[in-house]
């Protein structure tokens, strides 16, 4: 045990004493939170330049209403107000439809968009008022350089639909001017559940917002990912260097391969614990100071630590085994993807897991031990929680998988660390893992 601790101590100090670790410890959260802050700052910043949009109304019922709506909007939104910057004016240009050669007209309008005379052009189909019987025609077409992400498209679609609804109601004999709030829409307020407090009083349902729902799971996932990047991932290059610089041979003259690898894994775990102590401590402090401590249940810290210790050992064993099989940095780079892949997959699953944390997909994926550290944590951090048995079952699965990885990784490590010149092939690695 003394030797394992010595190897762990050396590996730990070799990592935490580097400028890269210290800078990374500070920079990683700054960069990540910085990007969120920048996104928040620029979220409401739009291009204030006027946008000229040509309208080709083949239905004959939309253009006038659209021009009127644009005038009202411009009068309201193109003046900056406290908390709301000046918005771009929409200048609509009604173009008479060319029924003899509609394709030529579309091309000419497209050329004007390309020449930046127009921001976009809109074509309302002839049957837009009653589209149900005509599925062949595009009833509302919006053309611009970046139509899919163009916010003007949303405004135009909304106003066109409002104008069409008014027309349909008029046809049905309903005078919409008598009911100004006919089209007023109500947003569904996201609220939690009513509870009874200690005094027996029924408390108000707490307000929920999307950011508060997404932030804790995302923070947990990023935190776990960073811990793996610090504690497990470096095992690959460190082991490869120890092998290629013949350090491993000297060390193995004093310690058994299993002790060597155990020490390295322990060092990685210690690195992760150091980094997580800083982040978890600062995170909890920040939440308390900001009065947001309710956002993150405290119990999740315990689950985070348990999953992190196992995940660093599990992935660390994988990376150490891969590193031992590599002879130079080029080989290490090429196999690193093999170890990174299972770490990256959960990052793509943030939204589906957060949207339906108790759905079959999220539950099933989070019970896969390789993905438990990130996905189960994400689920634990979602409002409403998950069944209590699931984190425990996932923990048992992780313990078993970690033991398997450390055992198999140790067997590969033992053989590979002294084998020079053999490139790391999956078949060879599996053979070493099975036969030792």
């Amino acid at each position, binding site marked *: 045990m*003394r030797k394992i601790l010595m190897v762990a101590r050396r590996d730990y100090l*070799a990592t935490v004493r580097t400028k890269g670790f210290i800078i990374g410890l500070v920079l990683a959260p700054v960069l990540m939170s910085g990007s969120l802050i920048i996104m928040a700052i620029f979220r409401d910043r739009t291009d204030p330049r006027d946008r000229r949009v040509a309208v080709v109304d083949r239905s004959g019922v939309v253009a006038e209403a659209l021009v009127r709506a644009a005038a009202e909007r411009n009068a309201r939104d193109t003046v900056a107000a406290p908390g709301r910057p000046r918005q771009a004016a929409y200048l609509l240009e009604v173009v008479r439809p060319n029924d003899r050669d509609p394709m030529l007209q579309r091309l000419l309008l497209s050329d004007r968009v390309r020449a930046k005379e127009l921001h976009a052009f809109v074509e309302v189909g002839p049957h837009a008022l009653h589209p149900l019987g005509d599925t062949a025609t595009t009833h509302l077409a919006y053309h611009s350089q970046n139509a899919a992400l163009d916010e003007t498209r949303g405004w135009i679609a909304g106003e066109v639909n409002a104008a069409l609804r008014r027309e349909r109601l008029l046809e049905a004999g309903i005078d919409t001017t008598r009911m100004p709030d006919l089209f007023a829409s109500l947003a569904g307020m996201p609220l939690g559940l009513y509870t009874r407090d200690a005094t027996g009083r029924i408390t108000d349902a707490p307000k929920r917002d999307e950011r508060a729902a997404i932030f804790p799971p995302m923070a947990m996932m990023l935190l776990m990912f960073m811990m793996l990047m610090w504690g497990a991932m470096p095992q690959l290059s460190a082991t490869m260097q120890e092998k290629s610089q013949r*350090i491993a*041979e000297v*060390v*193995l*003259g*004093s310690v058994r391969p299993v002790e060597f690898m155990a020490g390295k894994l322990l060092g990685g775990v210690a690195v992760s614990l150091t980094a997580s102590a800083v982040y978890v401590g600062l995170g909890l402090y920040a939440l308390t100071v900001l009065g947001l401590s309710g956002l993150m249940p405290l119990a999740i810290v315990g689950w985070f630590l348990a999953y992190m210790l196992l995940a660093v050992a599990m992935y660390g064993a994988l990376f150490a085994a891969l590193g031992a099989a590599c002879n130079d940095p080029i080989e290490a780079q090429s196999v690193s993807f093999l170890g990174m892949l299972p770490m990256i997959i959960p990052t793509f699953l943030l939204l589906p897991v957060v949207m339906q944390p108790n759905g079959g997909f999220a539950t099933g994926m989070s019970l896969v031990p390789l993905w438990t550290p990130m996905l189960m944590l994400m689920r634990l951090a979602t409002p409403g929680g998950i069944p209590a048995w699931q984190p425990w079952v996932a923990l048992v699965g992780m313990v078993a998988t970690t033991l398997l990885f450390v055992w198999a990784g140790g067997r590969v490590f033992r053989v590979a660390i002294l084998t020079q010149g053999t490139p790391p092939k999956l078949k060879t690695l599996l053979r070493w893992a099975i036969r030792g």
Partner: protein
Amino acid sequence: MNAIDIQHVTKTYGPVVAVDDLSLAVPEGSIYGFIGPNGSGKTTTIRMMLHIIEPDRGEIRILGDVLHSACTDRIGYVPEERGLYRKMKVREVLEYFGGLKRAGSLRKEVNAWLERLDLAAWADKKVEALSKGMSQKVQFIAAVVSRPPLLVLDEPFSGLDPVNADVLREAILALRAEGTTILFSTHDMPVAEGMCDTILMIFRGKKVLDGTLTEIQDRYGTDTVRLRTDGGAGALEGLRGVDRLTDFGQVQELRLDGTRDAQDLVAEILGRTKVTSFEVMRPTLRDIFLRIAGPEAQEASDA
């Protein structure tokens, strides 16, 4: 007691027999030379002694005990290719490697060895700042700082200048004088001849020589004539009874095939050219090495 006792050890890698039924005994307190061409099984044997790899068959005893993990704490090891953490400071790396062998503070020993090998000024420098020779001395200290009773040295002098080689040689001899047993793997035949009490040669995994230098040379008899002539190697061509002519430039060596007396041969040479000196001698270790291993050994010997 023998410091190392290897009995009928075999190690194979797939179809390759790296070490084949090898037996050897290294007496305590001796310097034991371990020679053989590249790929002959020396490193595999050393790794088995260090418990880095397990033999397929046979038994290894280290300092009286059947080999087990704790035995390696009593063996210092200097590998052929240096293995030091480049980003660590010299003192740290020595305390680390020494500490893996022996618990407790090693600061005193580290300081003493740094002083002895003229590296005290580099104690707090990173290993990456050292020259190759200095790194080699640091590697040596890393092996001896825990005071192991058995020291395994694999080419300890390669890359050292004559001054540093002498410093290291004196240190090795001093350790032997203090009772340390030294297993010395080398391709440098004059060094092996000069330093080793006993020499073992391994070739294609098998032991082919084992004994003191005198015992080994006795097996080959006085079949070598070394001479210096005015005519050089050209005057020695085509001599009857000569198995091999080796030209060192100023000096030539003739190996006799046993069919002719040395005196008779020198008499014939005197008829061809002026002989300024000659010596009838036993073959050198290098010569014996080459006789056994042929071209493979030539390559290793020249390396």
